[in-house]
């Protein structure tokens, strides 16, 4: 029996509960999470120091973060026009899903921008970037630093 046949035979034997359990243990792609966390302190464009200590209100922080990230993107794109990767990295630290609560006006211009190679990539990254900001606010800087 070849490997694929054997794999599919075992797949048939898996129960729905087994598959759901496996699926629930995984969330969205974490491909860049480790790299982002390990580089967090070294990242020269965006770091915790970019956030003022007074920016405790979530809307203010989101706006501030949005501006900082956009500026970072502009700088990165001057150096390397295809560098969506850096921006994608920024958005991958959070596990909170707050997509339904994010104000769409904040990222509409990013989505419509033709400068970046992948609109979906930008949208996804920005969604998770916002999640990161909410995570910072809800769990506190101490928790975030602990994660880093």
């Amino acid at each position, binding site marked *: 029996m070849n490997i694929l046949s054997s794999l599919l035979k075992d797949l048939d034997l*898996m129960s729905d509960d087994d598959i759901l359990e496996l699926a629930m243990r995984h969330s969205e792609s974490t491909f860049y999470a480790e790299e982002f966390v390990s580089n967090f302190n070294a990242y020269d464009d965006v770091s915790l120091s970019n956030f003022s200590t007074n920016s405790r209100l979530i809307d203010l922080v989101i706006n501030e973060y949005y501006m900082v990230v956009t500026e970072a993107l502009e700088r990165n794109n001057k150096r390397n026009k295809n560098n969506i990767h850096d921006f994608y990295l920024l958005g991958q630290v959070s596990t909170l899903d707050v997509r339904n609560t994010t104000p769409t006006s904040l990222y509409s211009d990013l989505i419509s921008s033709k400068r970046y190679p992948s609109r979906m990539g930008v949208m996804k990254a920005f969604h998770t970037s916002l999640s990161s900001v909410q995570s910072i606010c809800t769990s506190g800087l101490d928790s975030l630093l602990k994660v880093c």
Partner: protein
Amino acid sequence: MGLLKMLTAFHSCKNSGSDDFIKEKTPFLSKHNSNSASNSDRKWLTTGYYFWLDSKRHAEKWNYNEKDGNVIVKFKLNLSYENEYDIFDLAGNANHQDMFTEYMKKYKERRDSAAQKKGRKLSNIVVSEIIEAMLRNATFAKFKSIKCNDDRNSGVTKIPFDDDKLCMPIGQAFQICVFERNKNTIIFEDIVHRGV
């Protein structure tokens, strides 16, 4: 197998500890804990020893920080493309890619059906979930490692073949995960970089 025929691989880590410590402790095992709420506890290709293949170029950015830089260690991997179960090669073996794609398609059907029956909403499927499911099969579990690449643009140059706009990408990053039980295939060679 002679050293010359083995794969060359690079592993990076934080710059701390003596050279002897690094020599003794590397490569570090990356543990995949898919139950964890922390992203850093989930690995692309499940639990194993992770390396960049052939060139240290991609290892240079990994575990790097501005103050201390990082450490890059060179290893030889006693694995061969000629042995059936040494490398599940998702980057260079079309048969392996086809197998993965076909399995993923069936797995996704089962997953969607299970979710519908139980009224559950699931997040997007990821590579590690599929591999974890495949590793439950005894035949597949004979593989000692998995090789893959990703679709990052950074560092990749696209060179046109002709004027038909099809390009050849150069500079891609190839990563290999050697499963924990196959640590004996990993041979330390040298610390090739230390610092900023």
